[in-house]
């Protein structure tokens, strides 16, 4: 996981609530066994004109507007990432080039998946999100800075807000830490727990073990 601390970028506005992971990456791309190459499929059904054989980009969809190319921040409304647990959604967002998503709330599973992929999720109040959405919609050069260490979001038009983040998640993002390695620091506790727990046969999945 790539460490990240301060991110300054223009932002792509997607002013919709409840954007589910089926929209972020449709099911047909879940058949792949690779972990990379999902960026081109992000928001596939919205992004391409699927009625034409050539499947050319839909010029009305915000990701296809040249002025928003290269933005690393996505802004959306509440309950972003709801629905299916597919981590492909986080991979697609990351591999397209986004490093952060700003929204009032995120769905739980998407929230953990994003963290595992070094994506910063910033929760701001509905009003603050609306301000940023409006500014990015009006002005594609609207630039936002997310400072993870300071837990602040600022922009080049005078906006400034503080956001909350779990300290452990912040630490992992800033240091780009692999979770499995972190857990394995506690392997002595785990061995001890497991030796006792294995005797509690009532919770053994395959009968008494």
């Amino acid at each position, binding site marked *: 996981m790539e460490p990240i601390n301060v991110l300054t970028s223009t932002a792509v506005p997607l*002013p*919709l*609530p*409840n954007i*589910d992971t*089926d*929209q972020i990456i*449709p*099911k047909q791309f*879940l*058949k*792949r*066994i*690779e*972990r990379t190459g999902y960026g081109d499929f992000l928001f596939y*059904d919205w992004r391409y004109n699927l009625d034409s054989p050539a499947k050319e980009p839909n010029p009305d969809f915000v990701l296809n507007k040249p002025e928003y190319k290269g933005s690393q921040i996505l802004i959306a*409304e*509440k*309950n972003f990432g*709801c*629905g*299916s*647990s*597919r*981590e492909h959604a*986080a991979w697609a967002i990351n591999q397209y080039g986004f490093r952060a998503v700003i929204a009032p*709330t995120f*769905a*739980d*599973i998407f929230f*953990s*998946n994003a963290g*595992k*992929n070094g994506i910063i999720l910033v929760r701001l109040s*509905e009003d603050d999100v609306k301000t940023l959405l409006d500014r990015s919609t009006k002005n594609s050069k609207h630039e936002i800075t997310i400072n993870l260490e300071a837990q602040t979001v600022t922009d080049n038009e005078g906006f400034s807000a503080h956001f909350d983040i*779990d*300290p*452990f998640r912040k*630490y992992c993002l800033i240091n780009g830490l692999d*979770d*499995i390695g*972190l*857990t*394995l620091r*506690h*392997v002595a*506790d*785990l061995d001890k*727990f*497991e030796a006792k*727990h294995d005797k*509690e*046969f*009532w*919770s*053994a*999945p*395959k*009968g*008494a073990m």
Partner: protein
Amino acid sequence: MAAPKTLFEKVWEQHVVAEPAGEPPILYIDLQLVHEVTSPQAFEGLRLAGRKLRRPDRHIATVDHNVPTTSAQDRLVIADQIAAAQVNALRKNCAEFGVEFFDVQDRSQGIVHMIGPELGATKPGMTIVCGDSHTSTHGAFGALAFGIGTSEVEHVMATQTLSQPKPKTFRITVDGELPFGVTAKDIILAIIGEIGTDGATGYAVEYAGSAIRALSMEGRMTICNMSIEAGARAGMIAPDETTFAYLKGRRFSPQGTAWDEAVAQWKTLPTDEGATFDRELHIDATELAPGVTWGTSPGMYANIDGTVPTLNDAKTEADKKSFARAYEYMDLKPGTPMSDIKVDAVFVGSCTNGRIEDLRAAADIVKGQHIATTVRAMVVPGSQAVKRQAEEEGLDTIFKSAGFEWREPGCSMCLGMNPDILSPGERCASTSNRNFEGRQGRGGRTHLVSPEMAAAAAIAGHFTDVRKWKQ
């Protein structure tokens, strides 16, 4: 005396391995269920890091999402090369890492959330995870069960634990007798309609009350299954005699004296008198009616005798916008009576409603009737076990003579990863759990209903009030 505890707290505390300062607790996972779609990258991760599966005996794998449901032969040789590669990857990975695998033709194959309970692998008091959001289903047994992403699947494979922040607790009490024609599906649709699709985000939900106690295990699984559609990762129901009766004698259930000891242990799990929850909600079961979702989010729900809501019914500005978008996508006008909505397709199946009881209920409606000429309809049993049982009871004959297709087990049209999809503009009465845009095929329009309501819609050609139908 120890402080009173909730079911969730008891199960949680019995699985905390360590609570490192400044980090989320490390939670032991008793069972991980594995399927073809969310596991290949996790196995690959292990391989790249030179790691083993810590406890292969605490893993069970099957194929469900991708497999064709048309015929046994189509499943052995999958025509879609990418899907076939994914199924083969799972076969290979299970052999390499030592995971018990129920392949397409196995007697125990089925949707991953069907086979855990059927095998007796899902039991009260366990922690269960799977790379699939509907893992909440297993909570019906008093297990703490939740969906995870692929990185976490790999984490569990490597460590049999998860680093997991503790959720808050939310009790939803449903009291009273369910009216005639109203099912578990209608209870959970009504709950989601009430609290919204993010209403339970951050909570582990416990369903309680006399209406829940009165449900069979099948009904309880339907309810816990859709907890995720209210934003909750986990839904739980306290184990009781109904739970024990379901589990007794199953392949992975304890036997003999071990069974008695297990039951004694499970009886300590229900929430203690006086335990408190972070949030509570009460629902009066006697006021519920059969429901139909009208929009593109499971919270967009109306009673069958109601109408498509108007913009004035939207609670917030954001909801107004979603409503407007949903009218257009679903091609519906506000104020349209739900029973005027015509359907082109009917799907009975999925991990929400693909169990034997669901098939019996649907068969009961269609018996001796025929589906409308404008409708195509299919029944996809959730597992091999359900399919066998249904065939023994002659349900397949009832469905086939009514014009339904009778399929092989799998996820099928619940998400349309296999060839079972809707065409653009087609409208489907579906017993599954998600009505998102394009969920059942691009441009397809999904209405979520109970098996009874789906069956009645197939015959009538439009949604119809199953309460009047049966009388």
